[in-house]
């Protein structure tokens, strides 16, 4: 199965060739439901000496292959023609073997043959599927069975990475076939961690970066209590937050000093979903 997953060359890949191996394919996580997760592995040039890093994107619902591999830390980026690839000199496979996991089923190329699976997604199922994926994937790539493991990701991966790590800690003494998952660390970037402080932090950031008015900030301060979940569930607080959130329609909220995409020849934008 590993050899079948080997990528000989991606269309549009730089002609000079590469000094690392790439694999991609499916790992079944639930045979009965027909649920399978898609992965893309980019090994380091000196793969045997490097740890394994599993990368998640957030959303929930966003693709680690599309965003993580092709926009962020993978070895290639896509040119504006949508066909040609160019090398990313800052790819993370310089320092680790990077495994991009499209998670849960329904994200990217991951799928389920049981359509009701798509209506019952959540943190618990995602962590359990990711754990089953990892155990089964290690059977396909046994050279990584004893390798140092790191989990990383951004945004809603602030849930995915620690919850998978938690599953690894919980089940590590029940692993089959001599697998040892040697979890060393997790790295989470701009991560959803704690709803109440995440919300307060976002609104404070808007104000301290001159994106909302003093009046709007005062309304939030006077009507919202971010110490308890009920503290933001009143009409005045809700109205003040909704007013502040208008800034999200005016700028690229993911990079407040960056430009928006204004190429009018591009239609049907593949929008990012909310971070929930």
């Amino acid at each position, binding site marked *: 199965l590993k050899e079948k997953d080997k990528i000989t060359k991606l269309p549009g890949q730089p002609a000079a060739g590469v000094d690392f191996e790439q694999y991609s394919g499916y790992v079944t996580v639930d045979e009965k439901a027909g649920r399978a997760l898609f992965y893309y592995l980019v090994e380091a040039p000196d793969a045997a000496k490097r740890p394994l890093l599993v990368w998640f994107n957030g959303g929930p619902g966003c693709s680690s292959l599309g965003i993580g591999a092709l926009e962020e830390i993978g070895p290639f980026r896509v040119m504006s023609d949508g066909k040609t690839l160019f090398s990313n*000199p800052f790819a993370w496979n310089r*320092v680790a073997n990077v495994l991009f996991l499209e998670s849960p089923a329904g994200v990217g190329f991951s799928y389920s043959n049981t359509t009701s699976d798509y209506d019952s997604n959540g943190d618990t199922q995602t962590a359990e599927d990711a754990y089953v994926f990892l155990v089964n994937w290690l059977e396909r790539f046994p050279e990584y069975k004893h390798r140092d493991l790191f989990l990383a990701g951004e945004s809603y991966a*602030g849930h995915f990475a620690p919850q998978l790590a938690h599953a690894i800690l919980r089940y590590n003494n029940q692993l089959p076939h001599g697998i040892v998952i040697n979890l060393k660390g997790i790295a989470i*970037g701009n991560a959803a961690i*704690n709803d109440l402080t995440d919300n307060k*932090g976002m609104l404070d950031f808007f104000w301290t970066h001159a994106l909302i008015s003093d009046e709007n900030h005062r309304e939030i301060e006077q009507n919202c209590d971010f110490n308890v979940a009920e503290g933001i569930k009143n009409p005045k607080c809700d109205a003040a937050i909704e007013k502040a959130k208008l800034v999200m329609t005016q700028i690229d909220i993911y990079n407040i000093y960056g430009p928006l995409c204004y190429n009018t020849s591009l239609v049907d934008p593949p929008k*990012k979903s909310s971070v929930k």
Partner: protein
Amino acid sequence: SSDPCIDYYVFEYLNNPAVQKALHAISAGPDHPWMICNDFSWEDTVPSVLPALKELTANGIQVLVYSGDVDGRVPVTSSRYSVNALKLPVKTPWHPWLVAQQAAGYVEVYEGNLTLVTVRGGGHQVPSSQPHRALVLIKYFLQGEP
């Protein structure tokens, strides 16, 4: 620097049948193209992963919380408030970290295996907007070096 239209290029690339074949990916057909993000109903969530982070650090797992400081969606203030909520003693106080002799951001190390790092000029997708700083950051984290 990152191209704000990059989602479109990736969308076109990954919906190319030749690319899907090379990746061994199964297409759901032209009516269901590969998408950057799919909207889900997501009922099963937790309001906080702070308890999980506490448990991980208590078991010797290193936790790095990093934050691009020009992201407005889950901004650096949110990351700071979340880490503050853990009430961990500070091991190494707030100080700059350097890449190419410039401040690449700021870092605070806490007792109990947790580090908070900011990435100056980084957006929500730090490795897109600050690729060099992101690579340096992950390199030292993987090596277990400060």
